């Protein structure tokens, strides 16, 4: 009876050698082969989009209520672009499909550096700008992720996370479900974050951040 989401992490690593078909940007970049690294990332994006659309299509056609692309942007701007493109294709195909896009960190890493979506450079975007592109792509629910700073207190990190998230809630049209756990959203970096710290972050996000969900 509960709504069923299928969650998956856009994982660009599997497309690079030795696991995948394309040259590995992490090996090319230290050699100064920037042009080659970018070309490999661009090929990776195309294949990742195709795969994400294929998997999400199959899940939707067997009855899923929604798709959750989680930890988007973990491989930087190519990863974020692939997910935005996949979302746009899916929403054109199935307008009623719920697509939740959760981020991997507060800042889109410029692993390519020149990728754009709707004319906006992806590298360096913070949550309030990430959210605008998510809206344009057709995302239904957006999940910002704010990294915890490990040499600061839980209270400091919660305050910082709420500061980042609140403008998304106030300015965005989408429901905002921030990521609050295991090193993001004001919680400590731990496999099993302590309940006292998590409950404080959770409560602060609901009552001060006015989140739409977690």
């Amino acid at each position, binding site marked *: 009876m509960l709504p*069923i989401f299928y969650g998956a992490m856009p994982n660009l690593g599997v497309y690079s050698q030795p696991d995948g078909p394309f040259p590995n940007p992490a090996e090319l970049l230290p050699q100064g082969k920037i042009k080659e690294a970018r070309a490999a990332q661009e090929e990776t994006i195309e294949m990742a989009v195709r795969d994400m659309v294929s998997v999400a299509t199959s899940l939707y056609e*067997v009855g899923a209520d929604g798709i959750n692309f989680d930890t988007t942007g973990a491989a930087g701007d190519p990863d974020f672009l692939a997910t935005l493109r996949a979302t746009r294709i899916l929403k054109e195909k199935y307008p*009623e499909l719920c697509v939740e896009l959760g981020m991997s960190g507060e800042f889109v890493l410029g692993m390519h550096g020149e990728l754009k979506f709707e004319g906006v450079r992806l590298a360096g975007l913070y949550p309030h700008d990430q959210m605008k592109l998510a809206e344009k792509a057709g995302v239904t629910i957006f999940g910002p992720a704010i990294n915890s700073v490990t040499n600061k207190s839980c209270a400091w990190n919660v305050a910082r996370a709420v500061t980042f998230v609140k403008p998304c809630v106030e300015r965005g049209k*989408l*429901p905002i479900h921030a990521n609050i756990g295991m090193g993001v959203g004001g919680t400590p970096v731990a496999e099993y974050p302590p309940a006292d710290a998590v409950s404080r972050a*959770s409560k602060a996000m609901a009552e001060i951040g006015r989140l739409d969900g977690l």
Partner: protein
Amino acid sequence: MGMAITHSIASGMGGVRTAGDLVGRMQMTRGMKIREAKEYVAGKLRVSVADLSDPVVMAEVRGDLDLGRIRSIPKFSKGIDAKFRIAELLGIEINCVKLFKKRVGRGF
């Protein structure tokens, strides 16, 4: 699960125990923000927004409207049966309900 339980107790609405799943469905299907989603669901259930998070009130409301409850009870709906009723009450399309109708070949 420890983290999920902590979140549920600290800031959750209560899921199927209350009206959390119904509010979630309005966010998912209509992209509503939480306040709008709560007001919509409260209107459909004819209760106040505060009642939506009250497990005592919602146990009665869900029982009266047969929307499924935390445990399956004889003569009350559960699973896809409850989803049919939820889709009808909220005026939304639920993917697996749509698929079910298609599979059994009925327009309903």
